[in-house]
Structure formats: C-alpha cells, structure tokens
C-alpha cells in the first residue's frame, strides 16, 4: 500500500531518513533501516577530506524546533567506503549525500559514492552553516545549475538536488537544477537561525549560527514543495518538521513524491518510520485510498 518506485529505486514506504541524522556510520544507518523501518536512508553529507565540524554546542532544543550546527563533520570519502558496505545490510536504497567546496569536489565525491554502490546521490545545496559549501551553491541559479550539470556529466546514478528556502526564489533554483539534468529535488534543508542565552548574553551554538529544523519549519517547507511541484516535472522529496502521518500526508498533498524525516526521531524514536507508515495507512484506509500516488498533489 505504501510502496513506491522513485528514480528507479523500489521503496517499501516513501519515508526516508534525512541527511545528517544518525548518518555518519554504517552501523547507525543499518539500524535506522532495520529497526526503524525507513524506506530509504540518506547518509551524512560526505566530502573529500575528514572534517571535525564546529565546536559544541552543535545542537540545541528550542520551544518548537531544533537548532544545529554540526559543521559537516564527516570522516571523508575515503573512509566512508566501509560505512556504505555496512549500511547495505539495511536492505533499503542508500542515497549518498555529497557536499563540496568546489564543483570538482561535488563531482569527485559523487563519482566515488557511485563506485561504493550508492543507489542515488543527493547534492547538499542547502546546508546553512559552512561558508562556501552547501547553501552557497543553493542560493544561486547559476551555481546550482553548474554543480548539477557537472555531476550529471560524470555520475550515472540519479542525482537529487537538496535546496534551501533561504534562497530568494527556491522555485527558480529548482528549475535551474531540473534544466541541468537533476533527477529529483529535496526541499528543504534547515534554515539559518540562532539562539542567544539571555543569562549569559552569548549565542548558544558553538558556531553562533545554525540550521533550524523541526515542526516550526514545516509550513515553510510545505510551501516550497507546493510551489516547486507546480513548476518542475521531476520528483520532489519533502523534508522539514515531519513527526506524524498527518505531516507526511500534508507533504504528499502538496506534491511530494516521498518525504524525509530528521529531528522527528527525537520525539518519536528511531521507529518513527514504522509509526508514521502506520498512521498514513490508517488515513488511507479511512479515506478509501489504495496507493500513495492517489494523494500526491491533491492540493495543487
């Protein structure tokens, strides 16, 4: 009932683990797939060299969301081969998230991930916390177009561009990515934000600025998915603030072909994928739907 086909991959349900969430090691990814019930897993964003990331605090809980500034900490693409190997035992499609400080780096890491046996590549053009990586490319139609085009030239896997709502016009950027050959769009990454502790007068995050995730960004993310879905013909993957089946259904109705779940794991545990799957099923049964495709884009 929940199974979908997406970019040539067979997913038992349309719920993916979002990048950067329990995604830095194979053991972790495998657990989310097997015990958690995710339909696909996206790895932590991987780059050319090992990165320690920002100093702590790298994660703060807010009243209605979460701030994070991990700083793209990752072991680098060389050491990540073993992690992908281990993650494969999770028996669900693996989407390798890739970041770079140059077009060349995106291409290089993408190629290597293909070699490791990833099922698709997600280009992180949405990360708000590291200078010339991520959102830097996602803010500009030209840069977004070029990075996608370059990767497409050398990588044969489906390529998904993950975008940010911080860009003035996310629809224009999504179209630029589609033009450049992107096979799908993920919307959205976390939004640049901060928290100051008023007792000490200091920004709480080690990096001062971080990315806002969680239920507070959902209305913005749903809007992005809705606007993008109307303008592109490639699949759109929704992301931002999903904790329940109702949240996911809202995304499908806005035109999402699949969704990713990140910080929702905090309130509902690693098995959130199983729980949300059940909730979607219940809704579908109550309302007489027999396949996810029947609700996709209903609100458009």
């Amino acid at each position, binding site marked *: 009932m929940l199974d979908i086909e997406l970019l040539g991959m067979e997913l038992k349900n349309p719920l993916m683990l979002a990048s950067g969430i*329990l995604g*830095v090691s194979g*053991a972790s990814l495998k657990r989310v797939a097997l015990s958690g019930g995710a339909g696909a897993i996206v790895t932590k964003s991987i780059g050319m060299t090992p990165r320690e990331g920002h100093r702590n605090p790298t994660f703060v809980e807010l*009243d209605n969301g979460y701030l994070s500034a991990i700083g793209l900490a990752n*072991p680098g693409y060389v050491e990540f081969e073993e992690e992908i190997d281990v993650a494969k035992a999770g028996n669900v499609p693996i989407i390798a998230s890739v970041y770079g400080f140059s077009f060349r780096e995106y291409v290089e890491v993408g190629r290597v991930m293909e070699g490791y046996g990833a099922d698709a590549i997600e280009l992180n053009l949405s990360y708000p916390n590291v200078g010339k990586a991520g959102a830097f490319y996602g803010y500009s139609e030209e840069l977004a177009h070029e990075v996608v085009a370059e990767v497409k030239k050398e990588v044969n896997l489906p390529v998904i561009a993950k975008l940010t709502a911080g860009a003035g016009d996310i629809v224009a950027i999504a179209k630029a990515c589609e033009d450049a050959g992107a096979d799908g769009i993920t919307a959205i990454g976390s939004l640049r934000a901060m928290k100051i502790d008023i*007792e000490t007068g200091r920004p709480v995050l080690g990096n001062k600025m971080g990315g806002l995730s969680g239920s507070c960004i959902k209305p913005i993310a749903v809007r992005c998915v809705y606007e993008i879905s109307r303008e592109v013909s490639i699949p759109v993957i929704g992301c931002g603030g999903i904790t329940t089946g109702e949240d996911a259904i809202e995304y499908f109705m806005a035109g999402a072909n699949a969704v990713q779940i990140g910080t929702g794991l905090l309130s509902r545990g690693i098995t959130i994928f199983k729980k949300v799957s059940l909730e979607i099923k219940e809704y579908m049964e109550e309302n007489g739907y027999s396949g996810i495709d029947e609700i996709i884009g209903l609100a458009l």
Partner: protein
Amino acid sequence: MNTMEIAKIKRVVKDTQRIKTFILDIDVSAIPGQFVMVWLPDVDEKPMSVSYTSGDMGITILELGDFTRRLCELKVGGKIGIRGPMGRGFKVYGDRLLLVGGGVGMAPLAPLAEDAIKEGKEVTAIVGAITAKELLFVERLKKAGVRVFVSTDDGTAGYKGFTTDVLQELLQKETFDQCFTCGPEIMMFKVLNIAEDKEIPTQASLHRYFKCGIGICGHCVLDGTGLRVCKEGPTFRDKELRKSHEFGYYWRNAAGQKIYFGVKK
C-alpha cells in the same frame, strides 16, 4: 524538553592535583551513570557524569585539554549551562555490588555506591589511579561505608599495578551479584573479560565523542550494534558490548574517523 539551564557554581572542591568537583545550584535528580552536557559559553560543551546526583548536583572534572582547563579555572559564582540529565543510568538489582573505577571514572560510581549503601546493599570498590595523589573519592566511599581497595600504577598507595590485577585476585576468593566499571576503555574491556569468566553481570559506562548528546547526530554510535552511547548508553550491559566489535578496540573522533586504542585489530 531538553533545554539548557544556566547554573551557578556554589562550591569548588579540589579533589586531586588534576581533578576538581563543582557543586552547582540546581538539582537535576539524576540516576547514577547519567550525564549532563556542560556548556562553557564561547568555549565548548562536553558530557560529564553527574557525580552528585541528588540535591545540588555536582560534576567532577579531570583537567585534560582546553575545555576542561577553562572549566577548572571557574570560581564560585561562575555560570555554566547544563542540559540533562541524559542517557541511561546504571541499573542495580543485586545485593553484593562491586565497583571498578579508574581515575575520573569514579565520578559516576561514587553516587551509585552511596545510593546502594543507603538501600542496605554491600558495596566493594576497587579504585585506581596513576599515583596516590590522583586517587578520587576514596574518603567519600569509606565514609559511605564502602569496602575500598586501592591500586596505583606507581605503588604510592595500595597495590602497585592496575585495578584489574586487584580485581582478579579478589574474584579468586569472593563473588558478587553485579559489577560496575568506569575508566579507561582498555581497563573496562579487561574488567568485562575477568568478570565474565566468573559469570558476574557487568555494566560499563562508556566515553565517546559527543556532539548532540541527545541521539540525533549519530557521532557516538557503536559499531556492530548501532546503539548510541548518548542515548541507549552511556552505561551498557556486558551483553550489549559483546555485540560491538568497536568496544575495547577503537573510538571515533570528531570527524567520525576510527581511532584505535592500541594497534589496529
């Protein structure tokens, strides 16, 4: 919700040359073995075991790198941020308990001992350090009614050698319902092996590099099991650790790269 609270330092105790205990003005009612994330504005935030778990909470810090040096410079009245208590504490069910602590690893074990004694249990502790002056909480344990064995690497107090040597000797003559250990991972690894031989169920409190501390980033996950040290841990049962080929062999640095304790397996 796991929000940060700003706490004031009420008291500072210099436990050893390199270890200080900070008593704060907040009560987090932690279970021994749980930790808090300690924030030093503009510096860093790191996990610390709660060493005084009821009433005003306390943390006990070994000066090691930049963060702990800056922390140890703080005076009474200084402010730090506290998130927690977090993670899973020790679970006590037996009546004869054995604790094996190395260095600052005594931090989570001391409140465990005090609570157990209050509940009428019999507690024995093996406390190890490099040298006599670095022994932590020996007096605190004795005062609580714990039978204490001491070992130092240099023999300046108690047995000259490792806690594991004392353990091995002790287990020739006696047995216990449960064993609890915290300290260098190599030590804990050996403690598990020795206790397993004698069929004593053991719980160990692990140290890993924590980023989020709350179970979302994945940086503290143990290979083989996928368990998060910050969430399903930091205390684990021997059975859980046996499933991890990482335990005793390597940890992961801030980048998530494997760092081997000794030679690569």
